[in-house]
């Protein structure tokens, strides 16, 4: 198979895997939440969630009807073949996945409201690039549902408000969002940079696997403190009350301008769909998000 065909095939399979099977770290977190939940109504929600995950896997059907707006995160070594063609290849993969899996057509023109019916449109799927050392092309597919996306928010805090302002903003937003982002969620928090960078960081944060620790000790402490605070609100599964409002809270940060303290919050629903694979220069493929998964 030529490289171009290989990339396309891997991308289709990543989308299929992402929408039909949650990564093991997310499933584990949901099982733990179910075991720990003390609210009867909350526990019933988590039971439905776990049953649904199992059914979707057995049947190979998307676990949520909202298969999201699709974006890809690419980490590519500069010498990898066909980099200039990746965008077109991924668009073709999305069109094919829409028919084959299938995915719900979710790309609409904002002026005419017309659906393209193939999940491809202007800047969709969006591709986030990083150029790295190595001999591989790493693709992460992130099909993100609209319900959680609608709750994302950015606030330009006054720098003097600092961490306590940040904590208040996060908590107020979580309470305001209530059941709408399909809790228990994964919350991504982006701090610093400019407005665009803060949100980009918040989105990167929700992509970090739940069993992966941030390298910075203070960030780990802050993540823990904010997660505990979020769960003390009692919003609970689907906003109906309970112990489990968020499965995890992840922070990424950048240095800030002296006058600015941007904080972005991104919500990912419990159906935290993502799939990552690496294509090596020799044509071998490794799945990183779902262990031991063969792709070809």
């Amino acid at each position, binding site marked *: 198979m030529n490289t171009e065909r290989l990339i396309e095939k891997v991308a289709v399979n990543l989308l299929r895997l992402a929408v039909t099977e949650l990564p093991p770290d997310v499933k584990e977190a949901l099982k733990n939440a179910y075991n720990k939940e003390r609210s*009867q*109504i909350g526990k*019933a*929600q988590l039971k*439905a*969630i776990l*049953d*649904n995950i199992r*059914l*979707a896997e057995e*049947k190979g*059907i*998307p*676990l*949520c*009807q*909202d*298969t999201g707006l699709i974006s890809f995160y690419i980490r590519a070594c500069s010498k990898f073949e066909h980099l200039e063609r990746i965008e077109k290849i991924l668009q073709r993969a999305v069109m094919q996945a829409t028919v084959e899996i*299938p*995915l*719900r*057509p979710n790309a*609409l023109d904002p002026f005419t*409201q017309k*659906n393209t*019916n193939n999940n491809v449109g202007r800047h969709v799927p969006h591709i986030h690039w990083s150029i790295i050392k190595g001999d591989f092309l790493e693709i992460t597919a992130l099909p993100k*549902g*609209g*319900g959680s996306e*609608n709750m994302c928010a950015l606030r330009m805090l006054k720098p003097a408000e600092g*961490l*306590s302002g940040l*904590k*208040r903003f996060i*908590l*107020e937003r979580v*309470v305001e969002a*209530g*059941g*709408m982002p*399909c809790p228990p969620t994964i919350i991504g928090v982006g701090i610093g940079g400019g407005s665009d960078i803060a949100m980009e960081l918040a989105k990167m944060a929700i992509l970090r696997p739940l069993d992966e620790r941030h390298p*910075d000790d*203070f960030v780990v*402490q*802050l993540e823990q*403190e904010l997660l505990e*605070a979020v769960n*003390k*609100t*009692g*919003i*609970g*599964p*689907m*906003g*109906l*009350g309970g112990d489990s409002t968020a499965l995890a809270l992840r922070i990424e940060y950048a*240095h800030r301008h002296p006058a600015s303290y941007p904080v972005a919050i991104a919500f990912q*629903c419990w*159906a935290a769909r993502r799939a990552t694979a690496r294509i090596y220069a020799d044509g071998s493929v490794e799945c990183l998000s779902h262990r031991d998964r063969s792709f070809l």
Partner: protein
Amino acid sequence: MRMREVELHTPILEGETRKLKIGDRIFISGTLVTARDAAHKRIMKWITEKKSLPFSLEGSALYHCGPLVRKVEEKWIVLAAGPTTSMRMEPFEADVIKNLGVKLIIGKGGMGEKTRDAMKRYGAVYGVFTGGAAVLAAEHIEKVVRVEWLDLGMSDAVWIFEVKRFGPITVGMDSHGRSLYEEVRSGALGRLNEILEHSTLKNPKPTKLS
């Protein structure tokens, strides 16, 4: 909170919905009609223009859902059909309840005061089906009776489903003015300052730049 289980069949009568309280669990059999924001907008436009709708909502269950369906040999198959966020329908729902006699609204995330007031007045309830549990929901859909307004797209068309013991649906807002969402939210707001004051953070060290 207690969780009473109730079986409902369409058409649903006001006498049945009036008995329901927040926290109750419903299983519904009969007809579900889906509508998202685009369909709600059109429903209201047609009502204003006095055009008759191609479906009835009298005593029906209205489902906030944009399903994932597939056509196999001229037959629609529902693959995944979980609820969508109900709050997007808030501007329209009170009028839909008033004009069309909807008795059960199924969605996720809850609705606002205007809908709550209309539900109280006209004896309707709001039930939540677990968001994202879309394959589980599809399991209880026996068949697609028909689809209307497909020009709005797959997710926004009005799908008429025949369902059997669709649920569990938790009553999130009842016809007596109570909302589980509001109670959970006001509890959270009441605890907010206490949560904010509690901190165990130790001083940050300057970041190492790589």
